[in-house]
C-alpha cells in the first residue's frame, strides 16, 4: 500500500498555501513532514483528509487516483487523522465518539452501543491502552483523549494515519509513550505521516523527513541529519539554535509572590497557594503542561483576575487588588499568551498598537489629544529597531505575520522603563527567525537588571532562557530547580512527581 500526493496546489485567494507539493508514504513507514508554523503543513493534510479541495494535483492510493469530496471519502479510502485540536465531542462518551459517523445500528436506526464498546476495548487491548469506553471525553486527561482519537481512526481500519502536531499538548513522558504507539503502529503495517516543527521528535521517530517551507517542498533529509542542518533547511538560512547568554548576575529580590490563590467564578481553584520570588537580573521560567495555572498566574499579576488572595509585591508596591492601570504604572511589562486576542487590536495600525499601554497621558497624549507627530516618529524608530517587516507604520496589525505581530507587542512592552517583565508564550506560532530575535530581547532585558517571569509550554525555550525553573502542576508549585536540571526530571515534575532532593 502506497499513498502518493502528486503536485498538490492549494490557493486561498492570492495566497498559495501549497505549491505543487509531491510526497509518498509507504506501508510500515513513518514520514515526517517538517516545517515552521504557517509553512502549509496543516493545509496539505486537510487536503489529504478531504476537508479542503486541492486546486491542482491528485492523490493516489496504490497508483489509483482518489476522488475526494469530503472527509467521508478519505476515511473510506483508509486515511485517518489525529487532529492537533482533538475532534472529539466533549459531552459524549468514548464509545459514542468512536462510533460517530460510522455507527453500528440495530432496529430502525437504534444505536448499538455494545458493539462500539466492544470495538473500543478490542483496539485498546491491541495497543495496551487503558481507556474506559463509557467515560465522558471531557473528563479524560489530554493524553488519553489523544488515544481516543487514535482508536477512532483505527476503528475505521485506517491504513494511513496522519498525526498533526500531536505532541503540542503532551508532557515529555506522554510524548515518549506516543512515540512508542507510533512504532507499534508502524510495525503493524500502518503508514504514518507525522507533522511537526520539533526537530528532536522528528529525528527520533521518522524514517524519512520531508521539509516544507512557504508551501513548497524544499528538500528531503534523513533522520541522521543534525538539528542545525534540519533547522537551516526549514528556515532557509543558518540559524542559531542556542541562546547565547552570560551567567545571570542576580541582584536583590525584587518581585515576591506569597501564598497566591486564584479561584474562578465557578469556584474552581486554579492557583493553590503558590510562593516564589525573582531577583533583579534573573529569568524565572515557569514550566508545565498547558492549563496548570500559568494563565491565571500571569493574569493575577496583571490584575486581570477577580478572586485573588495572597500577596504579590513588586519592590514597594503591593499588586493584589490593584487595577491594571496601577499595575502598568508600577512598571510591569506584559507579553500576553494570545497576541491576537489580548496583545493587539487587529484593526489598528502598528503605530496605534505601539501606544496602547500609554494611551492615558504622556508622552503620546497631551491635553486629551494624540500627538501624531511624536507617535509616528516613535513608531518609525521601533519598526527599525525591532525589525518588524511591514509595509509601514500605518499597516494594520492583522495583516502582519505571527512573528511580526509578536515583535510589535514586544517592542511596545520593552520600550518603557520596566521593573518587571511578564512574558507568556512569547514565541508561540512565531517563525524561527523571530524566535531568535525575541529571545535576544528577553536576555537583554534581564541583563539590564529587570526581573523576568517567562511562561512557556515549550520546555526547550524554558531551559534555554531561564536561570531558575519553577514547575506548575494543577495550580501548585512542584518545585523550583536550577536551569541545568535534566529534561527527564523536569518532565516528571510536569506530571506532578516531585524528585527527591528538590525543595518545593
Amino acid at each position, binding site marked *: 500500500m502506497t499513498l502518493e500526493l502528486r503536485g498538490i496546489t492549494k490557493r486561498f485567494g492570492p495566497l498559495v498555501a501549497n505549491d505543487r507539493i509531491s510526497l509518498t508514504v509507504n506501508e510500515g513507514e513513518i514520514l515526517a513532514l517538517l516545517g515552521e508554523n504557517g509553512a502549509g503543513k496543516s493545509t496539505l493534510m486537510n487536503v489529504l483528509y478531504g*476537508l479542503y479541495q486541492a486546486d491542482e494535483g491528485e492523490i493516489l492510493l496504490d497508483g489509483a487516483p482518489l476522488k475526494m469530496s469530503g472527509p467521508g471519502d478519505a476515511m473510506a479510502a483508509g486515511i485517518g487523522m489525529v487532529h492537533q485540536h482533538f475532534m472529539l465531542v466533549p459531552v459524549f462518551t468514548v464509545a459514542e465518539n468512536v462510533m460517530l459517523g460510522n455507527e453500528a445500528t440495530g432496529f430502525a436506526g437504534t444505536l448499538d452501543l455494545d458493539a462500539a464498546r466492544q470495538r473500543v476495548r478490542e483496539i485498546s487491548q491491541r495497543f495496551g491502552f487503558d481507556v474506559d469506553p463509557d467515560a465522558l471525553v471531557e473528563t479524560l486527561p489530554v493524553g488519553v483523549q489523544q488515544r481516543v482519537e487514535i482508536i477512532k481512526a483505527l476503528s475505521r481500519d485506517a491504513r494511513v494515519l496522519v498525526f498533526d502536531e500531536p505532541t503540542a499538548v503532551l508532557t515529555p513522558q506522554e510524548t515518549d509513550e506516543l512515540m512508542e504507539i507510533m512504532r507499534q503502529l508502524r510495525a503493524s503495517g500502518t503508514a504514518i505521516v507525522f507533522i511537526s516543527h520539533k526537530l528532536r521528535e522528528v529525528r527520533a521517530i521518522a524514517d524519512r523527513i520531508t521539509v516544507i517551507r512557504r508551501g513548497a517542498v524544499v528538500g528531503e533529509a534523513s533522520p541522521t541529519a543534525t538539528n542545525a542542518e534540519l533547522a537551516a533547511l526549514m528556515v532557509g538560512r543558518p540559524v542559531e539554535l542556542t541562546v547565547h547568554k552570560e551567567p545571570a548576575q542576580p541582584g536583590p529580590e525584587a518581585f515576591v509572590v506569597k501564598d497566591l490563590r486564584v479561584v474562578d467564578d465557578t469556584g474552581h481553584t486554579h492557583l493553590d497557594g503558590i510562593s516564589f520570588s525573582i531577583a533583579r537580573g534573573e529569568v524565572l521560567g515557569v514550566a508545565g503542561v498547558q492549563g496548570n495555572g500559568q494563565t491565571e498566574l500571569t493574569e493575577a499579576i496583571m490584575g486581570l483576575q477577580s478572586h485573588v488572595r495572597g500577596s504579590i509585591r513588586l519592590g514597594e508596591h503591593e499588586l493584589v487588588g490593584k487595577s491594571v492601570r496601577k499595575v502598568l504604572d508600577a512598571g510591569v511589562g506584559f507579553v500576553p499568551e494570545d497576541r491576537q486576542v489580548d496583545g493587539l487590536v487587529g484593526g489598528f495600525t502598528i503605530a496605534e498598537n505601539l501606544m496602547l499601554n500609554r494611551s492615558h497621558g504622556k508622552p503620546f497624549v497631551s491635553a486629551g489629544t494624540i500627538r501624531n507627530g511624536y507617535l509616528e516618529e516613535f513608531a518609525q524608530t521601533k519598526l527599525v529597531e525591532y525589525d518588524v517587516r511591514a509595509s509601514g507604520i500605518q499597516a494594520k496589525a492583522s495583516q502582519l505575520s505571527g512573528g511580526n505581530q509578536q515583535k510589535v507587542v514586544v517592542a511596545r512592552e520593552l520600550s518603557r522603563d520596566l521593573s518587571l517583565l511578564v512574558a507568556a508564550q512569547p514565541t508561540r506560532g512565531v517563525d524561527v527567525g523571530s524566535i531568535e530575535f525575541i529571545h535576544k530581547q528577553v536576555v537583554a532585558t534581564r541583563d539590564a537588571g529587570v526581573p523576568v517571569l517567562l511562561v512557556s509550554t515549550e520546555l526547550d525555550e524554558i531551559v534555554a532562557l531561564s536561570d531558575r525553573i519553577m514547575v506548575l502542576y494543577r495550580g501548585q508549585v512542584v518545585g523550583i530547580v536550577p536551569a541545568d536540571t535534566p529534561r527527564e526530571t523536569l518532565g516528571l515534575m510536569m506530571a506532578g512527581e516531585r524528585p527527591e532532593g528538590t525543595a518545593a
Partner: protein
Amino acid sequence: MSTTAKVPVPIDESAEPAAVPLRTALKAPILLGVVTMLVALLIAFKARAGKTTFRLAADTDFFDLPAVTVPSTATVATVVVLLALGTAASALLVSRGRRTPLWLIAIFAVVAMVGFLAWAAAGRTVPVVGLLGGSIALAVPLVFGALGGVLGERAGVVNIAIDGQLLFGAFAAAIFGTVVGSPWGGLVAAMLAGALVALVLGFFAITYFVDQVIVGVVLNVLVIGLTSFLFGQVLAENPQELNAPDHFERIPIPVLGEIPVIGPVLFRQTILVYLMYAAVVIVAWALYRTKWGLRVRAVGEHPKAADTVGIKVNRTRYTTLLIAGLIAGAGGATYTLVSVPQFGEEMTDGAGYIALAAVIFGRWDPVRATLAALLFGFATNLSGVLSVLGSPVPSQFMLMLPYVVTIIAVAGLVGASRAPAADGVPYRKG
C-alpha cells in the same frame, strides 16, 4: 529515576462541591422561603372562612371518588407548616453543600398549590379534573413548540421563530381545514407551514450565517404582519369559505379513559393530544437512541468533529430544523382545530416565547421541556379557572401568572445548565 509519590494536589476533587457555588445553591431555599411567607400572609391578613371542596370525579369513571371538603383556614395553616418544613430541609441541604433535589421542589409546589386553592376557593368547589385536563389542552402548543425548539437547538440552530411557526401553523390550519373540509387537511397544512418558516430560518441562519436570534425575531414579526394582513383582507371577508374549519372531536380512550382523575385528564382528549404524547416519546427516543440523534447532537456540540467523520453538518442541521418545523407547526394547529375553530389575529399571544422558555427550563431535553411546558399550561389554566370561581385575586394579576412562572422558572430554578456548545453558531468550513 528517583522520585517520590505524586504531589498531593487534590484540587479537582476538592473543587467538585464548590462547582455548585453557594450563590446558585441558595436560590432554591430563598425562593421556597418567599413562597412560604406569601402563603402565610394569605391567612394572616386575608383569612377566608368557610370550607373548600375539591371535586375529583368526572362522569363515566369506573367508580366515583368522593369530593374532598376541607375547612379553608385550617388547611392553609397546615400547608404553611408543611412548606416551612420543606424550606428548612432545603436550607439544611444547602448548608451541607448539596443541591435542593427537584422532587422536593415539586412536592413543595404541589402542597403550596393546594394551600392556595383552599384559600382562593373558600366556600366553593375546585374542579380538579377540569383544572388539570384543561392544563394539558392548553399546554399542547407549548409542548409541540418546545419539542421543535429542543430539536433545533440540539442541532445548533437557535429557534426564536417558534412563535411564528405556531401562528403560521394556526393560520394554515384554519384555511386548509376549511377548504379541504377535514381537520386532517388542516393539520398537514399547519405542519408544512411550520416547516416553511423553518426553511426560511435555515436559509438565513445556516446558509448565510445571519445572526440566528435576529432572523428568528424578524420571522416572528413577519408572520404576525403577514397573517394579520391576510386575515383582514381575505379571511374576514369570507369567513364561511376560508375560516371555519372542522375541528377535532374528543376521543375518549376506552378503559384508560375511565380511570378516575387520570382518565379524564389524560385520556379524554383530542387526537392532537395523543399525537403530542407520541411526539414526546419519539423525539426523546430518536435523539438519544438512534444514529440520527447521535449525529444531531454531535452537530450541535462540535460541528467540526462531526464534519471530520464525514457527517454533512449543514445538511443535518437543515433536516433537523425542518422536522422541528413540522412539529412546531402541528402545535399551531391546536389553536384553530380544537376549541375555537377559527383564526384570529395574533392568537398565539406569544406562546412561542413561553415554549422557548420551556426549552431552556427543560435544559434542552425533550422530556424535561415537556414537563416545563405542562407547568406553563397549568399556570395559564389556573388563571382561567380562578376567574370563573370568582377568586379574590384581581383577574389582571392572574393573567400575569404564566409569565411570572416563566421568569421564576428560568431565572430562579434552572441553575447552571449548559446549552449545546455550538448552539447558535453557524458552521463554516475550514
